[in-house]
């Protein structure tokens, strides 16, 4: 029988789950962040919310798979990262509550109180996104581990770099959300969304540049990874692909393509994600814990992979089906409310 490197396969699966989360929940969080920028009286907010109402729950489930999967197959990473990022993680969870409840509450409130749920939706989306970006930055900086346990303080995650990554993710999710709206809406709202996409597109690219320049100076390992040896190929290929995606994004927006900007924005995210993956590999929790050291025993990895191979394709199939049911442009009466 073939020998599989199960920890590596699992690292790939978890990476896929987190990517799926970022791509999917990214745009509906972005829609939430954009809420205050759209006039309350215009009725556009209803359309914005209806565009994501049927699918946000499924999108967020990928986050649960990321967390649950980490506990299952990389318990050491889970046990070290969550206490280290305790405050931003709790902030993210609370943010997700603020926005999650707004989907239903907004329609249950009186017209006078509805604006409070608009605020809850926007605030929660912003808080959750920023906290996720901070977590990413803190992870890139590295986590201090002694004897299978987090050994740092409760504010180690806080640094100019993690604030930078937090802000970058906010701008990036806004780009995803804006291009989603370009795809799903029409008329005045679509015009607004194009403007938002344009601005956040420029912002995203600028911030990617700043983060990319800052990262190699955090740690000699990152510097080595990107500027020496065989990986130099990636250091050229990734930016070139990024430039192509950016071109498709801006041309698509300019020429009023509905769908292309959305996928171009996701292309940008995918490339950044690959870039982060190159920086991390083969470590699970920088700077010390590798994929293999963090992995659960063989039997756990084996037990779960059997189901994963069967279930994840099924999940993807009915997720696609659900998007298909709600395809096309949203209109105001799209909800059941």
């Amino acid at each position, binding site marked *: 029988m073939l020998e599989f490197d199960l920890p590596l396969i699992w690292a790939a699966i978890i990476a896929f789950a987190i990517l799926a989360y970022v791509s999917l929940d990214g745009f509906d969080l972005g829609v939430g962040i954009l809420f205050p920028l759209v006039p309350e009286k215009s009725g556009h907010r209803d359309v914005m919310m209806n565009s994501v109402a049927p699918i946000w*729950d499924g999108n967020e489930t990928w986050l649960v798979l990321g967390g649950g999967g980490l*506990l299952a197959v990389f*318990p050491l990473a889970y046990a070290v990262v969550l206490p280290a990022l305790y405050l931003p*993680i709790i902030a993210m969870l609370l943010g997700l509550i603020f926005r*999650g409840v707004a989907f239903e509450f907004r329609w249950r409130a009186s017209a006078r109180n509805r604006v409070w749920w608009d605020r809850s939706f926007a605030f929660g989306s912003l808080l959750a996104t920023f906290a996720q970006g901070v977590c990413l930055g803190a992870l890139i900086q590295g986590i201090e581990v002694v004897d299978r346990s987090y050994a740092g303080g409760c504010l180690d995650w806080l640094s100019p770099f993690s604030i930078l990554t937090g802000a970058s993710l906010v701008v990036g999710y806004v780009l995803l959300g804006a291009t989603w709206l370009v795809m799903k809406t029409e008329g005045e709202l679509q015009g607004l969304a194009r403007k938002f996409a344009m601005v956040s597109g420029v912002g995203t690219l600028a911030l990617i540049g700043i983060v990319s320049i800052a990262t190699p100076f955090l740690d000699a390992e990152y510097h080595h990874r990107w500027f020496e040896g065989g990986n130099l190929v990636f250091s050229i290929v990734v930016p070139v692909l990024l430039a192509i995606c950016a071109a498709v994004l801006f041309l698509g927006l300019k020429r009023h393509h509905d769908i292309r900007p959305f996928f171009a924005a996701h292309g940008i995210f995918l490339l950044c994600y690959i870039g982060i993956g190159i920086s991390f590999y083969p470590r699970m929790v920088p700077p010390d814990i590798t994929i293999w050291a963090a992995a659960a025993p063989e039997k756990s990895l084996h037990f779960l992979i059997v189901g994963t191979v069967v279930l994840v394709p099924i999940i993807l199939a009915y997720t696609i089906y659900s998007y298909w049911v709600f395809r096309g442009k949203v209109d105001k009466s799209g909800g059941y409310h």
Partner: protein
Amino acid sequence: MFDISALDLARMQFAFTVSFHIIFPAFSIGLASYLAVLEGMWLWKKEDRYIEVFNYWKTIFAVGFGMGVVSGIVMAYQFGTNWAVFSDKAGPVIGPLMGYEVMSAFFLEAGFLGVMLFGQKRVGPRLHFFATLMVAVGTLFSAFWILSVNSWMQTPTGHIINAAGQFVPDDWFNVIFNPSFPYRFVHMVLAAYLTTAFVVGAVGGFHLLRDKTNKHARLMFSMAMWMAAIVTPCQMLAGDQQGLNTLKHQPAKIAAIEGHYENVKGAPLVLFGIPDNEKAELLYSIEVPRLGSVILTHSWDGELPGLKSFPREDWPNTFLVFWSFRIMVGMGMIMLLVGLWSLLRRSQGRLYDDVWLKRAAVAAGPVGFVAVLCGWITTEAGRQPWTIYGLLRTADSASPLSGAEVGATLLAFILVYFTLFGTGVYYMLRLMAKPPAAARETATTSLKRASGLTGAPSTLDQTDR
């Protein structure tokens, strides 16, 4: 500052978030199945009232389910934030079970929830029913896996312990189907069904008190009372069986539930009392002779263990376990009473006539929630001082956190949960206060009736938003 440790705060935080969370799934597991039954009946019998009652509860379900989802995401991370050592050690065993929960249950629910809530006009009725069914099945799968995890923590089997001190799966079948799992699973699913039944019964009763002829309220009330009459006795049997199982595997928990400090043959059933761990005795007790042994050993002279036969450091909080158990049983008695009462009235053909039965049903609306919470407190507090019974102490499971950060986030959770989920529960109650009526497009009769009243259609429009 305060005389309270980071460990205590972490326990309070987990107890708070999990207690709040369980309220929503306890309701949505039952309600999802009820919705599936209603839509199935509609497809089968083609009577509008079924789909109208379905639509009435669907909206309420959406509000409750949303709160269950967001409070549930918190749980997926609280294991790691608050119980890092536990996660590192038990992750290889419980993690894959939770992974299966996510993949077989959460995605199924979430994937089809959108179609169920918003897709009625976009897919055919049969496909829509399929979506409802998948949501219901998803909630049951979820209960299956998470109760397997919890039961393994109560009665761990099928694992070995490796050099790093981690629990490592040895035999997955024995891990999943550990000795207490089948009992706990049945007991919890029935509890969820009863919780929902009593909410539905209360809403039906509430609207029948206003309008005895409301056919939608009648349908709800009748279905709920059938559940109360049939499922409550089943639940009592299931509870009895779980008690026997606990006696076998966690005798100290039984000793705390019963309030026994000494080993006794022919033990009495303690109805009330105040267990005092300091003095190691039960104060002010009211007892029924020998009944304790009869219930738990099914014999007149059966011996029941007392807490003193266990090391002092292994005792749970006896007061909490003792009283939460009694409240749960009390709730069960109320359910049984309402169920039998309804059976009597039904047999007389007066189910909808007895005003006091309807009032009782309204008052009994929340009993399921109280019973579920108290039952969980009994079993969880009864497991203490262990996270993995007999193998890993709670004190050795915690994350390396400071009291300040756990205290601050605990406060944040309390504020956010009470404000947001409190408002959500208020919205749900307001939806339930709206009388169930025929849909405006299909049922012309009720439209005619409504327009006979001055201003009725306009109020209908307003409340319908």
